[in-house]
């Protein structure tokens, strides 16, 4: 009961009455409070109690002081109650009927019923927390909105304000181009670091400390952003991808020939990044660059199989030839599994399976699926 403070009962600005109920007796914990029966009023901000005879005797506590509350069913000779558990009293609390209390909870005893509706409304208010909505400024002052900061509510409002301000520094919401929303997070620290590394790389081309690189790369990984360094030096977007595509076109010709004209994109990724050493490619950049092969008239193509496997193949690579030769191989050996086929051709198992599946799709092969594994036969049907 020591959480209550004397009040004149007048509602503040933006505070509205939600429900009131007469015939309510207050309890300090389990003991009856030294107050008479009265009216309890629930507002959007506070819980107010007023003596039914003496209207000057009016006390209130903020809803923000409520931790939780529960119903206590009526018994024989006992009215239904609502038990309200409260936070500890704050230092700057205004004087009230009780200086101290050994109980962290109070009870509202509904002698004339009405507890069900009251409980429902209290639940609503506690969920909505309408007292937290910042009060709009009516008087323009230099510093933010200032209204009567009453106890905990005021402190909470200030904290909320500060949080909003700091957030502004960290995030920016920008609209780019035609209504596409991009949220970019500018972590100050990260930007500083990336700038210093970018400069170092530009100057010394690779003489960064191991530590910095690792830190930087881990930031990037956690944010999912592609390497901004190379983008800065070579531009971002399609221009960058075009340059990259050209580079790949040169780099991949020899390996492709070696592997029979086709390589899985994962193989390409490993090969390219191993060769690059420092300015590693992200998978997205690789895919986007590969997509440009055709438009740039390069002798390479990016191809996606039905299963989703992506490969880079020489333009001169003819699928019909491949399938015809696959059929020959299978007929020759009677039947083949993808592993056997891979070994025969020096292809990766993944690619050999794709080829066999394609031949099956075209009707040249049929399958034998058993406990021994998946085998392909020439289609004799």
């Amino acid at each position, binding site marked *: 009961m020591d959480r209550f403070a004397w009040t004149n009962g007048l509602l503040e600005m933006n505070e509205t009455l939600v429900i009131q109920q007469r015939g309510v007796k207050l309890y300090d914990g389990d003991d009856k409070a030294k107050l008479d029966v009265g009216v309890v009023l629930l507002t959007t901000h506070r819980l107010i109690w007023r003596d039914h005879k003496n209207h000057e005797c009016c006390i209130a506590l903020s809803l923000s002081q409520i931790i939780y509350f529960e119903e206590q069913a009526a018994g024989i000779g006992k009215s239904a109650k609502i038990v309200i558990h409260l936070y500890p009293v704050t230092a700057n609390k205004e004087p009230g009927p009780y200086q101290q209390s050994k109980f962290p909870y109070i009870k509202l005893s509904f002698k004339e019923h009405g507890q069900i509706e009251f409980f429902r409304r209290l639940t609503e208010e506690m969920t909505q927390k309408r007292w937290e909505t910042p009060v709009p400024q009516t008087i323009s002052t230099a510093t933010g909105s200032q209204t009567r900061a009453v106890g905990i509510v005021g402190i909470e409002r200030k904290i909320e304000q500060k949080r909003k301000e700091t957030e502004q520094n960290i995030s920016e919401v920008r609209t780019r181009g035609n209504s596409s929303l991009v949220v970019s997070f500018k972590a100050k620290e990260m930007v500083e670091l990336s700038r210093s590394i970018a400069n170092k790389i530009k100057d010394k081309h690779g003489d960064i400390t191991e530590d910095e690189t690792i830190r930087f790369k881990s930031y990037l990984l956690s944010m999912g952003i592609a390497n901004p360094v190379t983008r800065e030096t070579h531009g971002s977007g399609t221009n960058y991808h075009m340059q990259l595509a050209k580079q790949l076109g040169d780099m991949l010709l020899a390996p492709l020939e070696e592997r029979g004209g086709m390589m899985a994109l994962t193989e390409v990724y490993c090969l390219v990044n191993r060769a690059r050493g420092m300015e590693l490619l992200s998978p997205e950049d690789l895919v986007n660059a590969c997509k440009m092969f055709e438009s740039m008239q390069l002798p390479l193509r990016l191809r996606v199989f039905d299963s989703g496997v992506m490969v880079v193949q020489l333009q001169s690579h003819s699928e019909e030839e491949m399938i015809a030769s696959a059929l020959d191989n299978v007929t020759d050996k009677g*039947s083949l599994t993808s592993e056997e086929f891979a070994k025969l051709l020096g292809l990766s198992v993944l690619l050999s399976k794709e080829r066999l599946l394609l031949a*099956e*799709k075209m*009707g040249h092969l*049929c*399958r*034998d*699926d*058993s406990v021994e594994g998946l*085998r392909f*036969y020439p*289609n*004799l*049907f």
Partner: protein
Amino acid sequence: MSFEWPWQYNFPPFFTLQPNVDTRQKQLAAWCSLALAYCRHHKLYTLDVMESQESPVFNNKKIERKLSTEAIQVVFEELRKKGNLDWLDKNKSRCLVMWRRPEEWGKLIYQWVSKVGMINSVFTLYELSNGDDTEGEEFHGLEEWILLRSFKGVKFF
């Protein structure tokens, strides 16, 4: 005369339901004719799905391949669509196999009846299927239920 297995029977892929649609059609057609031929040869009129899994038709022990239950169901469904099979129960566990469709039987019987000049005379079903006169005819020994069905499409008095 022992049953002659078709070449597909010893071709392992025959026992795997083919994903390629065209290949599958050919495969199923082969299975249908094999199943019907087998039933005809052994004069089988009913099949139990569980039992047929172990039957040599769907299970080639020599090449260690057998049709899966799903595939067997697909073959049976194919036969049903063609009119060669009828389910005996709702759970699709037993079926009637008509390696000759009832209409075909009807026609055969009618042909024999007219051949022996017996049109307009009365026959009992028993006489038709088991009578001395019909010995040697294909429909001799035909089970009653299929005799009954064969009459549906044919004009009999």
